[in-house]
């Protein structure tokens, strides 16, 4: 069993590296903050696995 130990900044850099994105150092704190917000939103949504499949109709 392995569990990563990256902090959020390192995780953002790792994801950017995987996607071949170069991040401006001046943007880092804002990108990390936005990323943190989004992951916080994911926590708010919670586990939706048992809910209906995503078929969108208005």
């Amino acid at each position, binding site marked *: 069993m392995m569990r990563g130990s990256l902090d959020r900044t390192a995780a*953002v850099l790792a*994801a*950017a590296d995987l*996607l*071949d*994105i*170069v*991040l*401006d150092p001046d*943007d880092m704190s*804002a*990108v990390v*903050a*936005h*990323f943190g*917000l*989004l*992951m916080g*939103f*994911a926590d*708010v*949504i*919670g*586990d*939706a*696995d048992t*809910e*209906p*499949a*995503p*078929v*969108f*109709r*208005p």
Partner: protein
Amino acid sequence: MSGPARAPDGSVLTLAAEVRRGHVSAVDVAKSTLEALADRDTELNCFTDVYEDRALHDARRVDTAVAGGRDPGPLAGVPFAVKSLFQVEGARTQAGSVIQMQRPPASQDAAAVARLRDAGAVLVGATNMDEYAHGFTTENAHYGTTRNPHDRERIAGGSSGGSAAAVAAGLVPLALGSDTNGSIRVPASLCGVFGIKPTFGRVSRAGSVLFVTSLDHVGSFARSTADLAASYDALAGFDPADPVSSDRVVEPCASVLGLGVDDLRLAVVGDFFHRVADGSATEAVQKVAAALDVDREVVLAGSRRACAAASIITSAEAGQRHATALRIRASDYDPNVRPGLLAGMLLPALPYLAAQRFRSSYREQVREAFRDVDVLVTATTPCVAPMIGQRTMDVDGEELLVGMSLGLLTQPWSLLGLPALSVPLNGPDDLPIGVQLVAPPFQEASLFRTAAALEAAGVLAVPGAL
């Protein structure tokens, strides 16, 4: 100071009727509107482009039709503006960015622009916005901040802030906007005008720069319910060029405004929608509820999750849309927009899929609520217009980012593609604030009837010349 030519009652339909009868020249209306833009927009910064030659050309076309006994259309000679993300033939589609300006000019009008032009309306210019519609403030690093006509030190809201402010200031009586999470309704609320976000797929998005494919809507701003309904009737309809366009028959709305609301079941949305609204927003909802004799309240328990889901879907889809440009020219993006797009691009798939799954279950919950309700009532924004440059605001005892929080009351409805209309009321310190009316899919007529009833009851703030 010059001012745009107006009908005595300020109504779009009265102006169009005068033009159609040949009592007023569309060219004269266009000229006076263009003079007003040159004279009064310097301070407000609503417009990023003015199409003088095109406006005069289209106005002459209307006058020629009238002189020749041909029907110039129901909006004959009515000046209008478009958010700068709509294609305008021969012009570059700016979308609040500098990147777009290196692309070739549009070869044809966006569908919504073409529909208004076919109805006889005359396009005079394109309006300022948050870059690529990413934001709620219209503080644009490239093209400046659009100022609120009610208080120049406050934001107009966004992302369609230039359009809302232009209508509020009386520079044009109609304007087009787009709404992903509230980008029509939020600026409508903060600028004190009427704004409609129709049902998803009701108005074609063809020829507009999309921001979030599964959330983007096209709609309009006006200074009265009747004017807004006239624009909606001209805009709504099937378009095979837009993959999400609905072929459902359009129910005209301008002709039903006088039907009243006696047969409509109305309810205020409580809980989250009450907690997020401050005192001024709550008071506005109470005024509307009292005028309509609404004593029922419904609770939609998943609404906070709906906002979270909308934010995740927005970030992920927008990040994906801009992935190529972010790789090769990230520095050309607005520095206030770029971090959000990058974060969305880096987001794992799991939160996005969970958000889409939640969207489905929330739709079922709201559908259930609409079994015995026809129109839901909430505040449009949590508060009146924040100051320019203000970064945070207090929402329900929590300090949140202005740029993300102004849409908390609008996001749940666009997540579901529901039609929503914001009506203007007077808030504290002579600042406007909107109340939002929401209906089941394709029931725009219920919204217009309710707005008209509120207007007739004298509850709404009538936009004046600012």
